[in-house]
C-alpha cells in the first residue's frame, strides 16, 4: 500500500505534514531536539517574539487544572534581534519556521517583522493578537473586528511573507474576527489561543498566579476549540490551523474533519515530548486504514457528511 500524502499548503507554504508545535510550547525548538528529529514536523512555530527583549510576568506563572493548565508567561522572550540567531539555527533542520509575533501596538508588531523579514529562515508570521497575559492591550486587538482588520492591513504592507492571524477564543463571535482578518489580507488563521481563566489557592487564600489570570490550555479546552474551528472554517475561505487541547492523532483528526487544514499542538508536548511525531504517524495510519490517499481528503469531511 502506498503511504498517504500528508502534505498540506498553508498560506502558500508547503508543509510535509499538517502537524506543528504551537507557539510558546516548543521554545525555539532546541529543547525538544534531543527527543526526536525535528524534520518529522510539518512546521515549527516559535515562541511569541517581541521587538524588544521582554522579561515576562513574575512567578508563579503556572497552575495545573483539571485536564489542562493555566499559564501566565507574559511573553518572556529575548527580543527579535536575539531571536534571529535562534531562528536561523532552527532552519538548519529544513522545516518551515513560523514566527509568532507579539506586541502591544501595531508599531511593535511591525518592528518585529522589520527586524526579521530578511531572514530566509522565516517561512511565515503568526500574528498573535490574542495573548491573554499581556495587560497593555494584546487582548484588545483580538476582540474588535475593525481593529483586527486595520492591524492586518497595516502588517500586510510591511512584508511579502504570509501572515497567519492567531485568534482569541475569548469573544462572543469569533467568526466576525475571522472575517475581519480575512478582509484585512490574512493568508491563514490560527485558532484558538488560550481561554482566560484563573485558580485560587484556598490555603493561602489568594490567586495562584502572580498575574491573577492566565491562559487555559490542554485537553479541557478541546471542545471549545473544535467548535470555533468548525465555525470559522465555515465563515472564511482562507485556511485554518486548528489547535486547543490536541494530544494525539485522534484529536488532530477531529480538527481536520472540522475543517482545519493543519493542526498545532501545545500543552500536550509537556506531557508527551513525542506527541507531535506520534500524531503525524497516527494521522498517516488512519488515512491508510481508511483508504484515503491524501490528508487533504479529510479536511472538513465531517461538514460534508453533515447535511
Amino acid at each position, binding site marked *: 500500500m502506498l503511504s498517504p500524502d500528508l502534505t498540506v499548503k498553508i498560506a502558500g507554504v508547503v508543509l510535509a505534514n499538517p502537524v506543528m508545535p504551537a507557539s510558546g*510550547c516548543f521554545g525555539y525548538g532546541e529543547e*525538544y531536539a534531543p*527527543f*526526536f528529529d525535528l524534520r518529522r514536523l510539518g512546521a515549527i512555530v516559535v515562541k511569541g517574539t517581541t521587538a524588544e527583549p521582554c*522579561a515576562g510576568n513574575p512567578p508563579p506563572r503556572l497552575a495545573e487544572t483539571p485536564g489542562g*493548565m493555566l*499559564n501566565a508567561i507574559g511573553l*518572556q522572550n529575548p527580543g527579535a534581534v536575539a531571536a534571529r540567531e535562534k531562528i536561523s539555527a532552527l532552519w538548519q533542520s529544513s522545516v518551515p519556521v513560523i514566527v509568532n509575533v507579539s506586541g502591544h501596538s501595531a508599531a511593535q508588531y511591525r518592528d518585529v517583522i522589520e527586524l526579521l523579514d530578511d531572514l530566509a529562515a522565516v517561512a511565515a508570521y503568526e500574528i498573535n493578537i490574542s495573548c491573554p497575559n499581556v495587560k497593555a492591550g494584546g487582548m484588545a486587538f483580538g476582540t474588535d473586528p475593525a481593529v483586527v482588520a486595520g492591524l492586518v492591513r497595516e502588517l500586510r504592507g510591511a512584508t511579502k511573507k504570509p501572515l497567519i492571524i492567531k485568534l482569541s477564543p475569548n469573544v462572543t463571535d469569533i467568526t466576525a474576527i475571522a472575517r475581519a482578518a480575512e478582509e484585512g489580507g490574512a493568508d491563514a488563521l490560527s485558532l484558538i489561543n488560550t481561554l482566560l481563566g484563573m485558580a485560587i489557592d484556598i490555603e493561602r487564600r489568594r490567586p495562584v498566579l502572580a498575574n491573577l489570570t492566565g491562559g487555559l490550555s490542554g485537553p479541557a479546552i478541546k471542545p471549545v476549540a473544535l467548535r470555533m474551528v468548525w465555525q470559522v472554517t465555515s465563515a472564511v475561505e482562507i485556511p485554518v490551523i486548528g489547535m486547543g487541547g490536541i494530544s494525539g492523532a485522534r484529536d488532530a483528526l477531529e480538527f481536520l474533519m472540522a475543517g482545519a487544514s493543519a493542526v498545532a499542538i501545545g500543552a500536550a*508536548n509537556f506531557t508527551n*515530548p513525542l506527541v507531535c511525531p506520534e500524531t503525524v504517524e497516527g494521522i498517516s495510519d488512519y488515512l491508510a486504514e481508511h483508504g484515503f490517499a491524501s490528508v487533504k481528503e479529510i479536511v472538513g469531511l465531517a461538514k460534508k457528511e453533515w447535511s
Partner: protein
Amino acid sequence: MLKLHKLKIIKQELVAPGYQRLTLAGGIAALAGQFVQVRVSETCDPFLRRPISVHHCTEDRLVLLYRTVGRGTALLAAKKAGETLDLLGPLGSSFPLTDRPSAVVVAGGIGAAPLYCLLQALKQAGKQVSFFYGARNQAELLLRDEYRALVANYSEATDDGSAGTRAVVTQLATPAFASLDATVYACGPSPMLREVARLADYYGRSCFVSLEAQLACGVGACLGCVVPVKGQEQYRRVCVDGPVFAAGEVFFC
C-alpha cells in the same frame, strides 16, 4: 532519541508513613541534584508530569524517594512492582563539586532525597562531610542509617525533639558554617534555604541550593518555572538553569 525512558518498577517501598522509595530497572546516568519528570497517569488528570529528584542512581538502577502529598504522588505510590514508569531525564543542573576539602550538607524533610546522591559523590571525592538532617519528627527522618553511613558527621534536628536536637536544622548547622572551610549544599523548604543562604553568605562559604517550582515541560521550553536571578534581566528557569543554583543568585533580597 534521548531522555525519554520507560523503566520497569522493581520495588515500591513505604519507608515511613507517607513516604515511598521507588526502585526502577535501568540507569539514566544522572548527576547529584538532577531530577526526572514522571508521568503519573495515562489520562489527562492530573495533566502534568511530576518532578522527582534522583535519590540514587547506578548503572542499572534508578531510585526515587518521595513524599505523597497530593493526587499525583498518590498515583505514583499506587504503582506496583512489574509496572512500567514513563519518565524524562536526567534533567536540570547538578550540585557542583568544588576544591574545598569539606562540605556542609543541610537537608530539610523530603529535601533529603537528592542529597543522598550528593553525599555519595562527596564521599567518592574524598570530602570531609557534615550532614545536618532536619524534619518535623523522628518518623520523617527517612533512611537514617543509610544517610549516616555516608558521612563523617551526622546530626539530626526535629521540631518536636523526637530525635536528635529539638531545633531548626539551620540552627544546629550554624557552628559548622563558622568553623569549617566547606562548601555548603542544601535542599528543603524555602525558608530553610533562605536561612542557609544567609548563613553561608555571612560566613563567606560558597553555597548551592536546590529549588522547587511548579513545572510544566521540565525541559526549558515553556518558561513557566522561572525565578528571578540576581543581576539578570531575564528570569531563569528552575528546570534547566536549576534546580541547583548558587545560593547568592536566587536569595538576594
